[in-house]
């Protein structure tokens, strides 16, 4: 069993590199003999954990209701989970016939939800027979986040079309834009890779760009230009062309890159273009996408602003005049996300 979390918790890629990994096959055999590690709490949701905790609280010997309930919650967790879990806790208490009261003189049951570097910790303490009875249940933070992330794309002016833990450098619509789908330039296991995804987000093709011999760089600049037969990846010092049909024959050459200029979109009801701008200078702060009219005579007349959950890392509108793909890193989850930005007419 492979338990590196970027693979185990939220598989994104088909992980083709592992196909060539006899070591893992050996490990698999070894651990099959040793009995596979159970999935354990990795698949639990917060509601599951709340249910388990209430069951354990209800089983505390000599615990008598009514109880006065007090919640303690880290501010960090509050922003992630809200207070829904508290309501779930109350309902579970009722289900176990434990009566709650506002009477402060009643025995106190304190319940806390906290986040540590690796876990969510749900704990309860009740005073029973002059002693504290404590029950604690933990849940890996990573599994909680994976379970809690919105998986249904949102669509106001933008639509979340992809998210994953691997670093995404650029995203491009496919040449056959009408059919949907996109290509991602990503770093997977420290290798430069291109993924072709269908409209539903499924990975149709994974290409490890070994020919690029790309030395790992902290410089986030890289661009993917997708064409029907072949495509181009532009890096800070080189350019690589590859074809979807025979990706192993990628050819690279040293170039001084000319990065793409501003992305300009044209909505159906306006013949003038609108420029997409962002200040991605600091990765520790959320970005704001600004959509401003293109052309000097129109600048300053109006702007649309859209808050993103993290810094905006790339904007690519090359394939479709009406939409662009924006890559950001969600500062709450750490995932890289791709949003489709469409300029629709009307409010």
């Amino acid at each position: 069993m492979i338990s590196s979390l970027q693979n185990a918790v939220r598989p994104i890629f088909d992980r083709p590199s592992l196909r060539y990994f006899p070591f893992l096959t050996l490990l698999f055999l070894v651990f099959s003999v040793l009995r596979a590690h159970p999935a354990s709490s990795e698949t639990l949701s917060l509601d599951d954990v709340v249910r388990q905790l209430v069951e354990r609280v209800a089983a505390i010997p000599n615990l008598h209701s009514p109880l006065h309930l007090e919640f303690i919650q880290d501010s960090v967790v509050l922003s992630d989970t809200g207070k829904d879990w508290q309501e779930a806790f109350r309902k579970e208490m009722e289900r176990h016939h434990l009566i709650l009261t506002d009477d402060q003189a009643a025995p106190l049951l304190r319940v806390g939800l906290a986040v540590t570097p690796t876990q969510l910790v749900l704990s309860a303490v009740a005073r029973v027979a002059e002693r504290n009875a404590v029950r604690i249940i933990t849940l890996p933070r990573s599994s909680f986040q994976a379970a809690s992330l919105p998986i249904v794309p949102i669509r106001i002016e933008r639509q979340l079309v992809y998210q994953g833990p691997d670093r995404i450098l650029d995203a491009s619509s496919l040449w056959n834009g009408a059919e949907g789908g996109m290509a991602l330039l990503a770093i997977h296991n420290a290798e430069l890779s291109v993924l072709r995804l269908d409209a539903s987000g499924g990975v149709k093709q994974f290409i490890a760009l070994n020919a690029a011999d790309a030395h790992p760089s902290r410089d986030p600049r890289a661009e993917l230009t997708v064409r029907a037969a072949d495509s181009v990846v532009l890096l800070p010092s080189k350019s690589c062309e590859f074809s979807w049909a025979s990706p192993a024959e990628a050819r690279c050459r040293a170039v001084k890159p000319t990065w793409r200029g501003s992305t300009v979109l044209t909505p159906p009801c306006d013949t003038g273009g609108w420029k997409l701008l962002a200040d991605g200078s600091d990765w520790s702060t959320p970005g704001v996408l600004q959509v401003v009219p293109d052309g000097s005579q129109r600048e300053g007349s109006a702007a649309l602003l859209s808050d993103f959950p993290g810094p905006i890392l790339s904007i690519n509108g090359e394939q479709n005049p009406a939409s662009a793909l924006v890559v950001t890193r969600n500062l709450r989850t750490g995932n890289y996300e791709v949003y489709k930005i469409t300029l629709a007419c009307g409010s």
Partner: protein
Amino acid sequence: MRCTKSLSLAAVSACLAALVAPTGLLATKHPKFGGTLRVELHVASVSLDPREWKPGSVTAAENMKVASLVFDRLIALDEFGRFQAALASEWSHDAASKIWQFRLRSGVRFSDGSFLTPKEVAAALQPLLPPALQISATEEGIQIRAAHSTPDLLDQLASGRYFIFRAHPDGTLLGTGPFILVESSPPAPAEANPSVLRPAHMKFRANEDAWAGRPFVDFVEVILGDPPLRQILNLEVGRADIIDIPPDLVRKVRQDNLRVWSSPPYTLLALRFDEAQPAASDPRLREALDYALDRETMASVLLQRQALPATALLPQWLSGYAFLFGTPMNLDRAKEIRSALPASVAGGAEPLRLRVDATGDLMKLLGERVAVNARQANISIQPVAHVPTSAGTSATNSPSPGLHLFAWHYDSLSPRADLQALAQHLHSDAGDESLAESSDPEKLYADERRLLEERQILPLILLPEYAGIAPVVRNWSVTPSGEWRLADVWLATAEPATSNNESATGRDTALGVHP
């Protein structure tokens, strides 16, 4: 000003005018390579050899901060609770979490150009791992065998001293990290004024072949041992980019409108009883002192709200359950217990001697505050000076102390490992073996409660770390264990007019695009 699309057209136009026109909004800006990052730390020296670090010591924490420039670990933990591959690319374990396999990332080189091998990883980790963990090299990685279930092994390996290095016979260590140490000089008399000591200095250059990518800055200069006020001045005038700030100076720095970063509380200040003075072994005296301590006031008044009262051994950010331990202060109860003790115990001519095991005004003040609290419960405590000698022994001639005021840094991301290390520190022997056997949170809580009820240690306050950061420093971030990710930092200095010119700030700005 915050603008949304629901604003009226006029307001939107105003927003645009304010946000766009004056600054000439640019398309996405990108980080720049180049420049020298200047870091000032208050410690006088650092050791880059993890084998020499004493668990829990504050100096070890500073060592780790600097060592993370040149060394990597097998894995890392990100701020979202996910373990990330570092020198290990894959890992797995058996059902009992006793046998762990790590596959090494291929193609990783040490700073001398030689390849990292499984044997070197095993050799580096073996002296650092607890005796219950045995490591061996395999064909493509390493295997760690534990005597008991160790589900928190990743938490441990992603933090603390578990760096990978190659030790040369002459004692130098090579790393695979983002920087390479190129200069190191001890404190020396200043040329202009030999009566003044020039602080110790270390210089690191970017590792062009770092497996995770070349750092943005070309160099990191670390100045050690400058007094805090001089560090603050250097930050203000642009001579330093990052400094560490003592908690008692944070307010001043904030009032100066400097950028201050703060961490979760990584350091515990606590009292430890020492039975070398007989009165300290009396459990009733310990209990009375515990009830007498006013931790809230220590944190809010003495530390000006730059610290937190500590009622547990592990902080809330690490254990998640610290709130379950209530506040023990109860002066009436303290007096009651004290009154039942003989007057000669910690009183009159035989006060309980308190030794402060760390230097600095803050510790001294805290020791005095402990004495004041104790006096309110009729317990006599006498702080005694402690001057460590170069040999590490105490230079004081006073009788053995019954109390120590000490600082403890949480090294590990595993709360169990931290509690075990603390227990070992208390008992100065093999420690509590039962703590090594389970990561069950309820057992951990029970163990911590037992240690607290023994009252050999009385937690006082928890200290965050503070850093002052210059405006030119971009992309500042910190690992969950408190190490600074300086390889990801870049400097937002103006492009020089020519490659030979210096910028307006006078700093080294040979900025350019990494090839």
